[in-house]
């Protein structure tokens, strides 16, 4: 026994060393007391749940360790897996430590193994009483008290951040220079850089609330909605084509414009949710509320020949259920398509219960119609007027027909038409057409009738022809009316079944509409349509929606969520780096009526956000990803933001909001090669070329080439990668749009002043939000002189360079000079600082 004690002591020491060794910034301090959800559950989940977790099919020895009842019950072997305060009698410990290969857990072939330190942690936890709990994310957030703090705080966010830093023995960084701050916040809130004038106004504004007023100005800008829409479109897998072979173009962009508008109007997030999940089911649903449900219809549509409609239909439902689960619940629901979740308390029944809410439309999955009903017609005022005109014309045409036919086929009242003398010898096909009420005769029917009487009754044919023409024209207008796919349930509910391994051919037990049982609160029986689902998502007691949502906004501005796994709040997801802050934000969000602008303002006006982003090697080593926020956020801008910024800096940006997507410069042949020539890329011209990236046409099978590290828009994506590869450099150095932007910026600065220093200063202020330092000025001026010499010796090269891009250039500018400045401006646009939100 004594040997055992000293052994385990030794193990504990080694364990402690091991723990320190693997310490990363986010978990630097060893736990004072063991917390189940933080320390034990992940170990059980990683090592045991595959066979002893929620998945009933996979469960071994009838033992489950994911519930209190299971873990403290008697196992098949007659032993108790866990005995509180008595690790010596807990079978779990014996199994973890035995050397018997038949008994040891996890089994050798699983290739999983706990470290001695981990075993020791479990042993200590048992001996401390084996306190059980639930995974943190499934308990509703409780509003934590704002911790007291000695440092500078601007709002409660800072108190939480600083409390965490204090625990790590770290200090916050000083505030960033004001020029950095205005650029940082303007990029974050509008996706565009501040103009030199905006920068100087801010620098000269010495009032105490200058920064807060800047935030208010930016939040009120229409550019704000355009900026905030991007991530939502990625989550909503918005695109302008169906995907798959054929990849037909769709017209979902009115939905996209609605998203921009909703952000700009600051539609509260609960309403934003309600409308998109179930706007059509709201009492007296407005057009706008029905339009919002297009969210659910943004999935890919498969028009490939040979596909089975029902298989397609089920695929679309999978996509809808999984998208909603990811966006609102941070749940990896795709796992439960085929079986109960291996780690989280979601069952396969939960999956099909959620899917059942969406399984009520008349969509049948056939064909590849990019406007598959139910859809919402959105005629323009002009189209509405023309349709009304046609309706009037059609009405008189129908009356004329009735009148004419009453004479032509005169018969006793009440008698069928075949009794008319003139109808006696008519072929059956013609007779059948005549039996159709004149108002129901479509173009094809009218053509056949006209053909029959072509030679025998020109007067009758004139009447028919008149109708045919009106109808034909009207059909043309109807076809050109925009249609957005939306949600609309059939009157009679469709039954949903659990599909064995997700196979549409293998339906099992029926699954009624239900929210995940383990998260369900309140009366579960009454959930009978999408509105119930939406209301459950935004219920204050829902533990996930607010947390998952504030975490996504945090990710947008700070570069990484408080929970890094934005898409997974389950047991295998990352635990929040600052759980109190996350819960405070979540409860604050709910308490303030899901006010998005208020939440965003809170984040960007915090001292944490306003810190300098400078980093020392020691701090970088300690916290490479800046999880603790001992410095401000600094990361490369998204590729769409880089493009928009370059256009703005060059003075090229077109500010037109909304409308049909546009096609900017793209190397030739990209669509053609990917589609064997079926899709031709017809680039736009004029102002459309310079519209914001949000409006770029998104073809699903071959996305726009001018973006990188963006979602593919094929399935829901709530986190995109941030890579740093040579292909990005090639794009911003060589793409027509960027060369043209450099030329535009050069033209701007050349016109602004005759002196190089002033020109250089203006160029830097435009791109970086600050004048150049002395060193930078030296390097750039030196470079400029070289470029001048190069172009002076090769004027043809200057001319060729200046021809790039479709905006005409100011012919009054000296070509050699303009070309040299274009190269200099291209250098500026490619600076790390220019590509980075600092």
């Amino acid at each position, binding site marked *: 026994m004594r040997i055992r004690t000293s052994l385990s002591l030794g193990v504990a020491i080694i364990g402690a060393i091991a723990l320190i060794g693997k310490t990363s910034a986010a978990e630097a301090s060893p736990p004072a007391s063991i917390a189940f959800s933080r320390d034990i559950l992940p170990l059980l989940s990683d090592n045991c749940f595959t066979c002893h977790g929620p998945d009933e099919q996979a469960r071994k020895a009838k033992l489950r360790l994911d519930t209190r009842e299971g873990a403290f019950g008697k196992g098949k072997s007659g032993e108790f897996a866990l005995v509180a305060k008595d690790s010596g009698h807990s079978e779990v410990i014996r199994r973890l430590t035995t050397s018997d290969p038949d008994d040891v857990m996890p089994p050798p072939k699983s290739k999983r193994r706990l470290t001695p330190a981990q075993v020791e942690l479990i042993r200590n936890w048992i001996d401390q009483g084996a306190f059980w709990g639930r995974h943190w994310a499934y308990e509703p957030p409780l509003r934590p008290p704002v911790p007291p703090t000695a440092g500078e705080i601007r709002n409660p966010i800072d108190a939480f951040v600083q409390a965490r830093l204090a625990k790590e023995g770290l200090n916050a960084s000083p505030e960033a220079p004001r020029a950095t701050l205005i650029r940082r916040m303007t990029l974050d809130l509008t996706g565009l850089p501040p103009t030199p004038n905006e920068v100087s106004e801010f620098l000269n504004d010495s009032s105490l609330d200058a920064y807060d007023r800047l935030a208010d100005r930016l939040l009120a800008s229409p550019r704000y909605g355009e900026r905030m829409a991007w991530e939502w479109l990625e989550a909503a897998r918005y695109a302008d084509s169906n995907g798959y072979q054929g990849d037909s173009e769709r017209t979902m962009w009115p939905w996209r414009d609605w998203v921009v508008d909703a952000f700009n109007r600051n539609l509260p997030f609960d309403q934003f949710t309600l409308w998109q999940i179930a706007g059509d089911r709201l009492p007296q649903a407005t057009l706008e509320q029905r339009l919002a449900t297009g969210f659910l219809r943004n999935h890919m549509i498969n028009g490939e020949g040979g596909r089975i409609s029902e298989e397609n239909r089920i695929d679309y439902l999978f996509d809808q259920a999984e998208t909603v689960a990811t966006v609102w619940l941070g749940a990896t629901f795709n796992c439960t398509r085929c079986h109960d979740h291996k780690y989280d308390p979601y069952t396969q029944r939960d999956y099909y219960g959620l899917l059942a809410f969406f399984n009520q439309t008349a969509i049948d999955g056939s064909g590849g119609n990019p406007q598959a009903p139910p859809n919402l017609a959105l005629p323009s005022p002009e189209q509405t007027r023309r349709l009304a005109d046609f309706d009037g014309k059609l009405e008189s045409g129908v009356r004329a027909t009735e009148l004419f036919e009453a004479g032509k086929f005169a018969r006793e009242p009440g008698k069928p038409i075949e009794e008319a003398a003139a109808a006696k010898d008519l072929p059956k096909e013609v007779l059948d057409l005549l039996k159709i009420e004149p108002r129901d005769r479509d173009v094809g029917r009218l053509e056949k009738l006209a053909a029959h009487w072509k030679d025998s009754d020109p007067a009758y044919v004139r009447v028919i022809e008149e109708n045919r023409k009106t109808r034909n024209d009207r059909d043309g207008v109807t076809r050109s009316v925009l249609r957005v796919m939306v949600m609309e349930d059939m009157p009679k509910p469709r039954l949903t079944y659990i599909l064995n391994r997700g196979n549409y051919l293998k339906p099992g037990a029926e699954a009624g509409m239900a929210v995940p049982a383990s998260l369900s609160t309140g009366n579960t029986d009454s959930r009978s349509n999408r509105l119930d689902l939406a209301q459950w998502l935004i219920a204050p007691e829902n533990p996930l929606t607010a947390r998952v949502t504030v975490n996504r906004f945090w990710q947008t501005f700070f570069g990484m969520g408080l929970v890094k796994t934005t898409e997974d709040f389950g047991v295998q997801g990352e635990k929040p780096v600052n759980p109190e802050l996350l819960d405070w934000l979540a409860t604050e969000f709910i308490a303030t009526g899901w006010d998005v602008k208020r939440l965003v303002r809170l984040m960007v006006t915090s001292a944490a956000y306003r810190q300098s982003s400078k980093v020392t090697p020691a701090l*970088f080593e300690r916290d490479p990803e800046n999880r603790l926020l001992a410095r401000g956020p*600094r990361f490369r801008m998204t590729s769409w933001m880089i493009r928009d910024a370059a256009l703005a800096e060059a003075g090229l940006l077109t500010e037109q909001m909304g409308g049909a997507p546009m096609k900017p410069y793209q190397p030739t042949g990209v669509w053609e090669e990917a589609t064997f020539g079926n899709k031709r890329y017809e680039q736009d011209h004029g102002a459309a070329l310079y519209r914001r990236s949000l409006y770029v046409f998104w073809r699903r099978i071959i996305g726009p080439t001018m973006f990188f590290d963006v979602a593919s828009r094929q399935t829901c994506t709530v986190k995109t990668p941030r*890579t740093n590869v040579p292909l990005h450099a090639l794009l911003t150095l*060589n793409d027509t749009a960027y060369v043209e932007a450099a030329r535009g910026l050069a033209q701007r600065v050349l016109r602004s002043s005759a002196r190089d220093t002033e020109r250089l200063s203006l160029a830097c202020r435009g791109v970086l939000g600050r004048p150049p330092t002395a060193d930078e000025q030296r390097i750039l001026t030196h470079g400029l002189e070289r470029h001048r010499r190069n172009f002076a010796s090769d004027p043809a090269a200057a001319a060729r360079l200046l*021809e*790039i891009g479709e905006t005409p250039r100011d012919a009054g500018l000296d070509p050699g000079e303009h*070309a040299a400045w274009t190269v200099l401006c291209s*250098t500026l646009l490619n600076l*790390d600082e220019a590509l980075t939100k600092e």
Partner: protein
Amino acid sequence: MTPLHERRLQLTRREFLGRSGTGLGLASLTGLLDPKRLMAAPVARVGMTRLPGLPHLAPKAKRAIYLFQNGAPTHVDLFDYKPKLQQLHGKPVPDDYIAGKRFSTMTGKADGKLLLAPVEPFHQHGRSGAWVSEFLPHTARIADELCFVKSLHTDAVNHAPGISLMLSGAQIPGRPTLGAWLTYGLGSDAENLPSFVVMTSVSKGTTCGQIFYDFYWGSGFLPSRYQGVKFRGSGEPVLYLGDPAGISRTTRRAMLDDLAELNDLKLREHGDPEIATRIAQYEMAFRMQTSVPELADISREPASVLDLYGPSVKEQGTFAYNCLMARRLIERGVRCVQVMHAGWDQHRSLTTELYTQCRDTDQPSAGLVADLKQRGLLDDTLVIWGGEFGRTPFIQGNLDDRKFWGRDHHPYAFTSWLAGGGVKAGLTYGETDDLGMNVVRDPVHVHDFQATLLHLLGIDHERLTYRFQGRDFRLTDVHGKVVHDLIS
């Protein structure tokens, strides 16, 4: 992997150290090399580094070339010779061959479908006596170099899910593909080129409408730098590769020198190592501007080599050209080349377009193997040839209308061949029934095939994993058994 470790792998700071001697105009960056300012990261090779612990086992192959035949080549007309199919030509499929099987909607139920004899005669070739039909004379000639796997079977009946399963281990798009896994696990030896390159082609005049989806070479949830870089079939192989008109190499160099110096100032002032990576990547971009055109310049290839690949080898965008590029790429350290040729979907064109398909792929495929062999590269290069499933032994179309004979999708059996990289040359592995309908001996599921490919490259398919959404994912999902009998 811890975030720090992950971060370190991403960092190109060591790339920086590794290439400081060759820095172009980077004299000003020596400040970077002050060890006190650097993290204690190990100095490793340039490019993407291999994961610690890899390879798991002694690799037979160091790199792979996948000659992927999109659309599903007809195994019963090319490799899987069945005399009984000849005898029963025009007779209905016996029930017991198709009971309970699912085909594409074009076939629907297979009951009563008529069997179709192979279109061209078969012969045995080489010392191994492997069966190859007259459709593929060049492949037949190198039969002794090849290892035919005749017992492949899959779960998918449609192209995109089938190809996705074959290349990523899952029918639904979004998982990392073989090339991404290889690069992630084994790193890159290419100094001036991406480590996973993809090229696509289709025969001229083919009616095929299949799309090359980018998820066929995607990195899924692996970091995107592991994604295949698709070289284009026309114009510049890499988008935005060429300098804009009017920008000479001298101007570009001068500009990049300034850029590097300015970025270095920023790095010193600010300390974010991402800036060092950016400087390095701009330099890599500059080098690619030279290395990629150099790669594509085949003017110094002798005629005797070009002839191996057949007449269309000089034409950019053809399968032959891509096969030659594949060789040039692996010579430059690229880990995985995926050459894809579409158009094998003979629903109604067995007697017409199938000839074109074979004409355009047969000689280049065989030529590549021969070329690798004559250079001594075949020993440690794994070449894989095959599609996503097979084609039905019964006809699609009308028996009387020979011009439109076709075969439908067939997931229950198909053939692929392997060459080089530690596979048994001259082996025919696995067997189907006497109609080529179902596997009857040594079945090889897609996941088994993948496990075997990884094994040949020194990777234990169960140990090359990546954690995503709380689960350790791998190429073979939760399946896969290495087929040791294929390995020499």
